[in-house]
């Protein structure tokens, strides 16, 4: 059982680390601010949570796990909020996203209608 | 009254007098009465001390030890007694004269004038009776500071700049040279007490003695040794009573008095004559003596001429000290008194002329002697005394100095003394001659005051301006006959 837990937490940590790195690479590779938001999201969501769950498995049922849960809950609530806030600020202050040719909000709006 | 108490009173009386004057500032008559009473009481106390000293005692009063080995101390000895008598005695005369002069010229700030005068006298007493060089130095500085407001009295630009020079030179030399010399002395000798025979024997490398002496001589700026003499003519902007104070009563006398004190009690005459450390001073004093006389001749302003005369006369005293012999020192000490009497007379006369005629230039004073015969007579007597003609007091001091020079075999010094006497004649007598022998100017009475003797066709200054110079002129004559008493008093200091 301990062995399984150990391997599982190792795998989770590895996967989390990998996703954190991928997210970071994405932040460097992607062309504009709005696209980079998505890469940052990888780190903040699955990357962070996997690392934290990996740690929880190591800690077992203890105060430490409680704290780890608190941290993951906190990140779960605040990271999308912060991302939204940055994006929102960028948009209201007039930063234009680089979009695929000729696709603007109006046309996508129509698509939404058709999708429903 | 114990002698110690009397000693303390010499400082307290003028100080308290100053405070009383300050309180009475709004009532001029009361204020001046206080001045006169203070001066008289002080003189009485000093005379009482004189009797003690004549009896061979040396009253001492240790005040406080400021830092270990550095006490504030008062001690009466003959030289200081002489200076004390001169200063306190002449204060009375000068006070009387001041009342006349200050009222006659409607000066402002008279209360301040009398207060500072009292403080200056107090510090002069401190200098006269200082028991060690440190105490003397403190009072020396207080004297400088308390006379500053007197010099700057008129408060105009000229007065301010003159006073600035006065203060700058006196404080500068005293701190820059004298204080250094004092510290050096203290470090070398471990004491600053005035001791007959000096305190420096075997305490300091003889080759350094001339340097230390130079620090003292140039550091005592009040002795007006060239090239630190400029403050004296600059101070001429002050009212005449102040000039009298500076030239006769206190300031320059305090300077040469300090010179004598240093030579006699710090170095010791014998040490100086053995090592010849004061040889250079003879020549500097001689140079000052002659140069100042020559400058005096070239001055047309009467007070300026008298100022340079003072510089010259002070160097007689320094010369006496530099000769480092009993006769020289005696002559110098005697000259303090004789010159004081003579010079105060001359200044009071100059002031009287100014009050009566508003004239300051000698060339304008032709024939004035006929209108102001008393003033000019007093002037004439004082001039003769300073020139050194018998039967006036000045002849004695010069006589002693000449003897000292002869004793030391310094022929050149004798020559200097003689030349200088001729120069004295050249700068003092022309006024007398012009005053009496040139025709009188048309009468133009100054001011509305009824001048004494007007009904006899005279135009003298107010009585209070005329009587004091006559008194001091008389003093010149009297002192001639009592010079021996003074010399007897002084005898102990030369052992």
């Amino acid at each position: 059982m301990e062995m399984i837990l150990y391997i599982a937490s190792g795998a989770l940590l590895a996967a989390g680390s990998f996703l954190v790195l991928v997210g970071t690479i994405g932040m460097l590779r992607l062309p504009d601010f709005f696209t980079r938001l998505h890469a940052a999201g990888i780190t903040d969501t699955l990357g962070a949570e996997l690392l934290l769950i990996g740690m929880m498995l190591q800690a077992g049922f203890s105060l430490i796990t409680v704290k780890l849960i608190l941290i993951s809950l906190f990140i779960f609530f605040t990271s999308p909020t912060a991302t939204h806030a940055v994006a929102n600020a960028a948009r209201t202050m007039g930063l234009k996203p680089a979009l695929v040719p000729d696709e603007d909000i109006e046309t996508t709006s129509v698509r939404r209608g058709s999708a429903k | 009254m114990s002698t110690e108490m009397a000693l303390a009173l010499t400082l307290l009386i003028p100080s308290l007098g100053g405070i009383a004057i300050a309180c009475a500032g709004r009532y001029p008559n009361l204020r001046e009465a206080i001045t006169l009473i203070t001066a008289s009481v002080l003189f009485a106390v000093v005379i009482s001390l004189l009797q003690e000293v004549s009896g061979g005692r040396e009253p001492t009063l240790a005040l406080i030890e400021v830092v270990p080995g550095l006490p504030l101390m008062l001690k009466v000895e003959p030289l200081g007694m002489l200076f004390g008598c001169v200063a306190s005695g002449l204060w009375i005369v000068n006070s009387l004269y001041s009342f006349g002069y200050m009222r006659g010229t409607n000066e402002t700030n008279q209360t301040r004038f009398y207060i500072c005068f009292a403080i200056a006298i107090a510090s002069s007493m401190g200098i006269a009776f200082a028991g060690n060089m440190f105490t003397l130095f403190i009072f020396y500085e207080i004297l400088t500071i308390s006379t500053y407001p007197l010099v700057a009295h008129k408060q105009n630009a000229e007065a301010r700049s003159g006073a600035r020079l006065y203060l700058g030179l006196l404080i500068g030399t005293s701190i820059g040279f004298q204080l250094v010399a004092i510290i050096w002395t203290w470090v070398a000798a471990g004491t600053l007490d005035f001791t007959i025979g000096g305190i420096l024997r075997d305490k300091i490398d003889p080759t350094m003695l001339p340097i230390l002496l130079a620090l003292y001589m140039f550091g005592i700026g009040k002795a007006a040794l060239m090239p630190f003499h400029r403050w004296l003519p600059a101070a001429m902007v002050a009212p005449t009573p102040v000039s009298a104070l500076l030239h006769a009563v206190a300031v320059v006398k305090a300077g040469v008095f300090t010179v004598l004190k240093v030579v006699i009690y710090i170095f010791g005459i014998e040490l100086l004559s053995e090592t010849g450390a004061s040889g250079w001073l003879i020549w500097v004093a001689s140079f000052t003596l002659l140069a100042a006389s020559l400058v005096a001749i070239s001055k047309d302003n009467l007070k300026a001429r008298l100022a340079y005369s003072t510089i010259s006369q002070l160097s007689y005293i320094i010369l006496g000290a530099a000769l480092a012999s009993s006769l020289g020192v005696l002559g110098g000490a005697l000259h303090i008194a004789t010159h004081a009497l003579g010079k105060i007379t001359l200044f009071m006369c100059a002031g009287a002329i100014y009050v009566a005629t508003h004239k300051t230039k000698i060339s304008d004073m032709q024939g004035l002697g006929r209108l102001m015969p008393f003033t000019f007579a007093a002037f004439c007597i004082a001039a003769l005394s300073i020139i050194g003609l018998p039967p006036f007091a000045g002849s004695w001091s010069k006589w002693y100095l000449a003897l000292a020079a002869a004793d030391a075999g310094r022929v050149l010094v004798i020559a200097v003394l003689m030349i200088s006497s001729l120069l004295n004649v050249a700068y003092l007598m022309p006024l007398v001659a012009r005053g009496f022998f040139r025709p009188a100017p048309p009468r133009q009475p100054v001011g509305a005051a009824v001048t004494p003797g007007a009904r006899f066709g005279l135009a003298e200054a107010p009585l209070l301006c005329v009587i004091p110079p006559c008194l001091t002129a008389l003093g010149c004559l009297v002192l001639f006959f009592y010079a021996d008493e003074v010399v007897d008093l002084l005898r102990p200091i030369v052992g």
Partner: protein
Amino acid sequence: MVHIVGLGASLFGFWLLMSGHFGPLLISLGVASVVLVLYIAHRMDLYDRETFPVHLKGWIFGYWGWLAKEIFKANIDVAKIVLAPSLPISPRMVRVKATQKTDLGMVIFANSITLTPGTVAVDIEGDEIIVHALSQELADGVLNGDMDGRVTALEER
């Protein structure tokens, strides 16, 4: 009142969870702390449905399970895009109709969009959420109305 009690209870639970000490001193300090926080929350005027969403009850966990799956899938998708040498993106802005009635529901929806990589809720305008998407496929994941429906359902239970 329900809200106060609910908030108080959950705060106290939160305290016990963290503290791990059950001595009289720390328990009473815990009670005092909860009371203080409730007082401050009262002054801040925070007592409403949003402060303690009691009405969501246990259903939220079911929704979270579904959301976790979505987040997982979206992460894989975006990771692939990021790592692909050609960087196959076609970014676009889309407007998504939000059918929630309450602010809280709207916020849950918006944050859920943001939490799934590939879509970010950029703004809320009226009953529409403006979403930036990394590609058409990822946009469709939001536009298909599945998430919107689940959040609205959560709200209505």
